[in-house]
């Protein structure tokens, strides 16, 4: 079986040699897979970390490689853990897990559709006619399912090798009933193990470096085929979870990266409102399904070209200003930020609460203020759920999690489990001797206000005004 995955070797800066089977090589060579070379893994992170231009392509290879290594490690302990057939399928699912990604990864997928308006109305106002909103863009994993099961170049290659595309799509979406373990959607999964190390290498930041070899060699499956880490590798897994937290704060939620991404979201929404990009989810699905080149061109370049085009638009000055700011790397200025860690679900600070509840009305006054005078559309308010150390179910206490039972499986699904020396599995965050036990009780909140197209002096003036306003409100 080993030789099967040495049909071709690709050299990767993170993992070294990555061996491929004949089918994997053929899948990688399809135009649909090659499209991933045009989608940057970290969206706009390169505006802050210039080398962070790595793509979903190499990440997908890395995820497949780690999947293979973990499965090999499991099979070396007990061959019945994973059959040879499942081994092949799980590697392919890992290879194709990002095949449905949108330009700039998650940016385009999350248009603010305001779809709730279909179902609610303001009291005292007539309901009016039925609001007909187009179908939302499908999430990338749904789009991936369409690509895997319908798009000719991928589908045919799988079928010719007697692999049912539905099998692979179900594995990618976490809907498969018989092939487990869940190695694609959990706290400890192959996706995370690759992106932390790869993002760390390409940004130049050390936080995401994971003790990959030791972790991989110390994984086992429970009787229920849940992945557990041997107790002796506990420090490695704790380090990985903490590394993720720091990578989140320094890269994924970096103030400038986030600012650009907010601006892109505004651009995408404006283009959508003007009918300059795909209008509905049906159109996107059809494009992915059809054997045409449109989907192949649906990568970062698709948005880059639109931004280029509208940066010089004379008709829409607002859109032109946004596009120009992206092109010339002029991020919105951060004028105010509240970043907090609260303990055991204690309430956030008064300042945060005031900002959350009153900003919607207050910023309109600021926008009109004669000393500021900045139109409303140039303000960005972001209330961001920060990175947590571990995904403990929000309503579940640690004491409850400690009573680990099968029925609670879904709520504990994403948590890392340790195999104690006694052989019993235990949820890491419930172990008082783990630093994660304490860290997991910290809930981060992050609130930011940005303004587009201002200089440092204006940002300073606005900051002072916001601080004064918050102080006056706190006294009330």
């Amino acid at each position, binding site marked *: 079986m080993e030789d099967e995955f040495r049909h071709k070797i690709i050299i990767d800066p993170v993992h070294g040699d990555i061996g491929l089977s004949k089918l994997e090589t053929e899948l990688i060579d399809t135009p649909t897979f090659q499209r991933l070379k045009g989608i940057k893994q970290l969206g706009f992170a390169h505006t802050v970390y210039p080398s962070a231009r790595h793509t979903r392509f190499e990440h997908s290879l890395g995820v497949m490689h780690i999947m293979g290594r973990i499965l090999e490690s499991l099979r070396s302990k007990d061959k019945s853990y994973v059959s040879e057939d499942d081994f092949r399928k799980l590697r392919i699912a890992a290879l194709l897990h990002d095949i449905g990604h949108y330009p700039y990864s998650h940016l385009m997928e999350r248009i603010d559709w305001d*779809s709730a308006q279909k179902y609610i109305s303001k009291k005292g106002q007539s309901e009016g006619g039925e609001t007909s909103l187009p179908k939302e863009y499908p999430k990338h994993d749904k789009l991936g399912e369409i690509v895997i099961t319908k798009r000719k170049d991928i589908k045919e290659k799988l079928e010719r090798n007697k692999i049912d595309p539905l099998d692979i799509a179900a594995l990618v979406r976490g809907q498969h009933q018989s092939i487990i373990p869940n190695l694609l959607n959990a706290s400890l999964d192959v996706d995370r193990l690759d992106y932390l190390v790869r993002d760390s290498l390409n940004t130049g930041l050390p936080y995401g470096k994971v003790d990959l070899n030791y972790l991989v060699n110390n994984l086992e499956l429970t009787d229920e085929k849940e992945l557990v880490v041997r107790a002796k590798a506990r420090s490695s897994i704790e380090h990985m979870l903490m590394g993720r937290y720091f990578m989140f704060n320094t890269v994924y939620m970096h103030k400038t990266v986030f600012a650009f991404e907010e601006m892109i979201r505004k651009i995408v929404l404006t283009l959508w409102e003007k009918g300059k990009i795909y209008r509905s989810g049906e159109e996107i699905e059809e494009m992915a399904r059809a054997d045409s080149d449109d989907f192949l061109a649906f990568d970062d370049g698709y948005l880059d070209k639109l931004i280029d085009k509208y940066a010089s638009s004379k008709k829409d000055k607002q859109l032109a200003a946004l596009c120009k700011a992206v092109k010339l790397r002029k991020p919105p200025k951060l004028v105010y930020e509240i970043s907090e860690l609260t303990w055991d679900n204690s309430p956030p600070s008064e300042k945060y609460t005031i900002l959350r509840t009153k900003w919607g009305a207050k910023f309109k006054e600021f926008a009109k203020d004669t000393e500021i005078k900045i139109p409303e559309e140039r303000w960005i308010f972001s209330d961001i759920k920060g990175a947590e150390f571990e995904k403990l179910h929000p309503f579940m206490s640690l004491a409850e999690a400690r009573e680990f039972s*099968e029925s609670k499986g879904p709520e504990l699904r994403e948590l890392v489990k340790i195999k104690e020396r006694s052989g019993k599995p235990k949820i890491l965050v419930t172990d008082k001797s783990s630093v994660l036990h304490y860290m997991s009780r910290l809930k981060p909140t992050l609130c930011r206000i940005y303004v587009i197209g201002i200089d440092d002096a204006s940002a300073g003036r606005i900051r002072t005004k916001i601080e004064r306003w918050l102080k006056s409100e706190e006294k009330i």
Partner: protein
Amino acid sequence: MNKDHILLKLVLDRIGFENIEIDKFDKRKNLQKKIYLLQLTGVDLGYRYNWYLKGPYCPALANDTFTLREEVKYDDEFNDYELNSKTKSKFDTLHKIVSLPYTPKTSEPEWLELLASLHYLKHIAYWPGKNNPEFAEVFEKLKESKPHFADKMELAEVAWERLDDNGLVANKTLE
């Protein structure tokens, strides 16, 4: 409060979670399953469920409900809104689906779990060779992943019939 959270709050009010008291596991389970079934009637709140060993489950719903519970402590904007009449009518359908059968005896968490699981296995889950499965095949799959239903075939048949009566065996959703 964003519109999605306003909608979620108005929906929770209608399905018995006015105070968002879901600290008990069974209540959280009921909430998960009721929202799953409500979405089938055509009120799409955007929650997508995965099957994880023991049934359909949506972590995003758990997170949003938690955020909402904190939010309503200081933001009552949801009071300015109401569900429109078309949406309200969907709750009649939901009621028809979820109301407990006279026999066999069951509890709300068990009944909701059964309805949601049978639907999920019929329409969403995947296994090799699956091809528009009928009750017998779906029940076999259910027993594999939920052995505690192995001796509940009669109840499962009633649940299947309930789904069928409401068009949810022939169709994945009602819209």
